[in-house]
């Protein structure tokens, strides 16, 4: 399938349902080396995003992503909420003038999403953050676009890369947010924010029917 502005509400309904389903798991994961808020804030943020897109159908892809980002910023002012909002707002800019999401647009979107979060959070790769999943994810889509893959193929490959990258965060030591205070103890546990990124690409891939 292809994705245009009309398809965005469905995509965010997927995100919403998945975060609702993962709520408890994310609470527990963030609770290990943090403050247990991540499950709540992601459920809240994506419920708000989906509701905003239902309320007013977006005219363009860029519009829809902007609406979603703004809704998340409002509903979830936590670290990840602010970072996710930033991602969608920056991604929206990359979609300016794009009517249908082809693989190149998808690559641009996730690259902008990653860059926005990198800039906002000022984390380095290896700091055990959402960036450690977003980066290989975005790189994979870019490579797939280069290779002429379909959006479905590209996002499936990216989901696989994200899964591996998430696994790799277990070896890292947290440098940011509440988890940083746990230092060494954060080792062995996958990054909670990275888990969120993994979920996003899985659902994106599913939306493309991959």
């Amino acid at each position: 399938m292809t994705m245009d502005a009309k398809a965005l509400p469905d995509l965010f309904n997927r995100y919403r349902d998945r975060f609702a389903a993962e709520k408890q798991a994310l609470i527990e994961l963030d609770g290990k080396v943090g403050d247990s808020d991540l499950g709540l804030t992601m459920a809240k943020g994506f419920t708000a995003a989906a509701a905003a897109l239902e309320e007013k159908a977006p005219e363009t892809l860029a519009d829809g992503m902007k609406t979603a980002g703004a809704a998340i910023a409002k509903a979830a002012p936590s670290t990840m909420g602010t970072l996710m909002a930033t991602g969608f707002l920056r991604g929206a800019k990359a979609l300016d003038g794009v009517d249908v999401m082809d693989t190149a647009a998808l690559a641009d979107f996730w690259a902008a999403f990653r860059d926005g979060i990198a800039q906002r959070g000022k984390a380095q790769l290896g700091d055990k953050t959402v960036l450690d999943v977003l980066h290989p994810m975005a790189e994979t889509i870019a490579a797939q676009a280069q290779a002429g893959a379909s959006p479905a193929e590209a996002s499936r490959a990216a989901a696989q890369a994200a899964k591996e990258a998430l696994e790799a965060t277990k070896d890292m030591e947290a440098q940011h947010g509440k988890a940083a205070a746990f230092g060494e103890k954060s080792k062995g546990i996958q990054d909670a924010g990275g888990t969120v990124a993994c979920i996003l690409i899985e659902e994106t891939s599913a939306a493309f029917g991959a």
Partner: protein
Amino acid sequence: MKKFLNKPEDFVEEMLEGIYAAHPEVTHVADDLHCFVTANPVPGKVGIVTGGGSGHLPLFLGYVGDGMLDGAGVGGVFQSPSSDQILEVTKHVDQGAGVLYLYGNYSGDIMNFDLAGELAEVDDIETATVVGNDDVASSKPGEEHKRRGVAGIVFLYKVAGAAAAEMKPLAEVVRLTEKAKARTRTMGVALTPCIVPEVGKPSFTLGEDEMEIGMGIHGEPGITRKTLEPADAVVDEMLERIFAEQDYAAGDEVAIIVNGLGATPMEELYIFYRRISQLFAERNVSVAQVWIGEFATSMEMAGASISVLHLDDELKPLIARGATTPFFKHIAK
């Protein structure tokens, strides 16, 4: 925990209700008590928005008023306001001349203000940012960008507010505020911790005769923890670190804030100032303006900080200009 409150989770909202009830010159927008704005915006003026966690009164919202700031995003105790709250405040205070974001150097605040600025841009509101980083104790010279923002930000509010009140354009307000920032330094000392209402117990302890030089206003670690010394010796140590930061030459002028962190009596702040005034007199540096009292607190923390703004011909009149907010009144000289 001995505090006058009802439910800890209502601490900030009820405080805000009290403030709005007492001071009709401030109000809130977007149906959200946390979106704090002046009731008297000035058309065509650069808007100035601050914000940060609660628990620091009169920071941050206390400087919203004539000749100072136009709005503040109010977070939970020691928590950033949301980008959305900042955005709502931004929209309200923008009077067509753009908005300056002026707040302290804390990562949560930075993320949310940056995001708010991006959202504001979508609404065609120009924003600029100056982040206060006056706390000498929080990072060594050369790494000033890592320093926390504490009471010295009041100087930045004063300078930015005066520049904006004189209807200077955003770029000029930014330039002057950046200059004030480059010339502002603060050193603090803490004697006791404070308690976040929803936590209910102190986040750290200090021994019965201990002080911590350089502790942050959320209890961030300082430079040294040692036995409490006579007031003059404490001031000497604090000012020595400030004097080492820039060249305060004979004939120069400064503005000073002697700030109580919460529980420290005004009497002790004046005992501090006695020694401070001696040390500046020794250097033939004259004190053009001094504010003594509570300007940036940590609820019931005992302790004090000294902030010094190294004045120049441009900054001095901006500091001297009158300003009136519900929490800060300065009569022009």
